[in-house]
Structures are given as C-alpha cells and as structure tokens.
C-alpha cells in the first residue's frame, strides 16, 4: 500500500513541477518491478498495483489532465527501446551496475544477484532518454541511477537530464530504528536510506489509507526524544510535510499546558522544541491531526472508488 513518503513527498513535488509549467510523466515501472521480484515477479499483480498507484495519485489531485501516466511496458514495446538499453549497458562496467543496485533496495554488499538486476539501472537510464526528459525526479536513494544516466548521456552524446532529488521520509522508528545495511559509499546517505519509511516493518510507516485513529496510535509510538531534532521522525514530518503545505502551523494544546502555539516557519518550531517549549506528546498528537487532514481527500476518493484498494489488499494478502 502507498505510504505518505510516496504520496505526500513525491505528490507535493510533482504538483510544484506541474505548477511551474512542466509536462510531467508519472512512470509506472512494471518491468522494473518484475525484475525486482515484486509480487514474486507476477506481472498481473504488478499491473494491479500500478493501477492502484494511479488511483492514489489521482486521489492526491494528480489527475490525467495534469500529468501523463506511462507504463514501462508501453516504452519497452517500442522497437528501439532495447537497443537503447544495450547502448547504455555498453558504457558501464558490470561492477558499476552492481554498485548501483541500492536503487532497487539492495545492500551494497549483496553479491549473488540475478543477471536481470543489472538491466535495471540501464533501463532506468534508457527510460529517461526514451521519453526525452529534461528533468528526472526521484528520492535521493535513486541518485546512482541518475548519475549513471548523465554519464551515459555524455558518452553517447544524448542530451543528459537534470537530476532533482528529494529527501527520504524517515520511518516512525527514526534513525535509531533503521536497519544496519550499507546503501551508499557515503555513510551519511547510507544512513538516510536505511532509515526511510518504506524500508522496514508496517508499524514503521503511515499509509495513505490509515484512519485518523490509527495515525494517532502509530505516532504515539513514534521515536521522539525530548529536545532532540536529529534523527527525530516527528519533527522531520513538520519540516517535510506540514510546513511546505501550510503557511502557518498551529499546535493545539490544553489551556493548562499553556494553550495553542502558532509557528510561521519550521525554524521557529525547531527552536521551541529544542528549548523544551513543546512536549513530545503535543508534537505527536498535532502531527496526527495534520496528517489526517492532509489525507482526508484520499480517504474520500477511495470511499467512492473502493475497488482498486480492495484489489490491492487482495494481492498483498497472498
């Protein structure tokens, strides 16, 4: 199921791009999912999941009049697509392609991989050229694919894309709850990727479909040490979700604890938290309310269109 890292961080950035006049393509990477053995590589289930993704983005306001949806299998059925993949593969060594595999969520140390995996970064680069893109957007965990595409572009004299990278949204367990995997030569970036919301267990993530009550329950258990902002996922959600979407953020509090607080920038809130003017509990409960508000339209959409969500639940359960 889609989590708020994908829905809200990517969704918001895509809206910015559309507003700035971009022709924006949401690319449903069915082939890549098959290579990455999602749903055991079952293409039918992958298509179902792709349709569901399309509904999620539509529910978030990215309707077909604003963005274009393209399936990887549409591109791959074009006669020149695989030639492009091979031309790119000829510009990079197998070792280099191996080192790019953290883009598929693999640990850098993984040695025993299917040969098909080595096509993954080459296809990701080929997609960019095949769609004549000016800008390739992704979370920072995809930077290796984009760097590779740019280098291949230079070697092949194809117009190389600008790469735009967004932060990873931390899981509810924060930095301390992340796995110990190695996802990049840069230890700091590796840590960021290891702590991302999608990386670990379901209780570490907030889904687009979670009820306001469940969101609150999950947030109550979130890692949120007093005064500390580093590695604190709750404060991160204010920075990456609440402030970009709102001019001011109000923390509602009981009168006996000092009443409501209003902040017009993340820095103000951060400073107040560091100096213990905000209790972790207030930070959590208010974030739960803000998220439930941001996800209201998604809940409304799926109340009206329950089938794609039910189908997704069915294939995930198996």
């Amino acid at each position, binding site marked *: *199921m*889609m*989590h708020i890292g994908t829905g809200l*961080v*990517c969704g918001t950035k*895509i809206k*910015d*791009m559309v507003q*700035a*006049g*971009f*022709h*924006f*393509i*949401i*690319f*449903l*990477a*069915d082939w*890549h*999912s098959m290579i*990455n053995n*999602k*749903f055991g590589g079952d293409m039918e289930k992958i*298509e179902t*999941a*792709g349709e*569901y*993704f399309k509904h999620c983005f539509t529910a978030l306001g990215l309707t077909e009049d604003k963005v274009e949806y393209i399936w990887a299998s549409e591109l791959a059925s074009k006669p020149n697509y695989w030639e492009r993949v091979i031309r790119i593969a000829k510009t990079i060594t197998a070792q280099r392609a191996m080192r790019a595999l953290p*883009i598929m*969520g693999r640990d850098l140390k993984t040695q025993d991989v299917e040969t098909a995996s080595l096509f993954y970064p080459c296809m990701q680069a080929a*997609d*960019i050229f095949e*769609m004549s*893109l*000016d*800008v*390739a*957007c*992704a*979370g*920072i*965990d*995809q*930077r290796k694919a*984009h*760097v590779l595409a*740019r280098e291949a572009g230079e070697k092949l004299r194809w117009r190389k894309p*600008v*790469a*735009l*990278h*967004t*932060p990873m949204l931390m899981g509810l367990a924060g930095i301390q709850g992340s796995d110990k995997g190695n996802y990049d030569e840069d230890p700091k970036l590796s840590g960021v990727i290891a702590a991302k919301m*999608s990386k670990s267990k*379901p209780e570490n993530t907030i889904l687009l479909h979670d009820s306001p009550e469940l969101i609150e329950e999950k947030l109550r258990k979130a890692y949120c040490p007093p005064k500390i902002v580093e590695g604190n996922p709750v404060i991160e959600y204010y920075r990456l979700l609440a402030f*970009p979407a709102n001019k001011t953020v109000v923390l509602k509090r009981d009168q006996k604890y000092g009443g409501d607080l209003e902040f017009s920038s993340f820095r103000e809130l951060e400073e107040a938290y560091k100096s213990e003017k905000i209790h972790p509990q207030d930070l959590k409960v208010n974030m739960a309310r803000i998220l439930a508000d941001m996800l209201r339209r998604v809940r409304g959409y799926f109340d009206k269109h329950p089938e794609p969500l039910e189908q*997704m639940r069915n*294939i*995930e359960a198996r």
Partner: protein
Amino acid sequence: MSRETRLELVTRGTVEIIQPAELQRVLEEKKKPRAYWGFECSGKQLR
C-alpha cells in the same frame, strides 16, 4: 509566471539538483519542459 517563481517552485524541498545551472537553462529555454518520476508498482516495499 516569472523565471524566479518557477525556479523556486521546482527547487523547494529538494536535497540535490544536478546541476542547478542546467536547470536554470531548461527553464529559460522551455515553456513546457518534460519531467518524470518513476515508481515501482509494488506493495510492501516501495522505492
């Protein structure tokens, strides 16, 4: 929309642009540049 406004919209909330000067050129030269975001169609683990 002014070029500055477009640039601000595109860059806000990002951690890295490779390269900012190239992005500026794209915005200068094109009214409707092309961009994408790719998603694996998966359930429990997403990229």
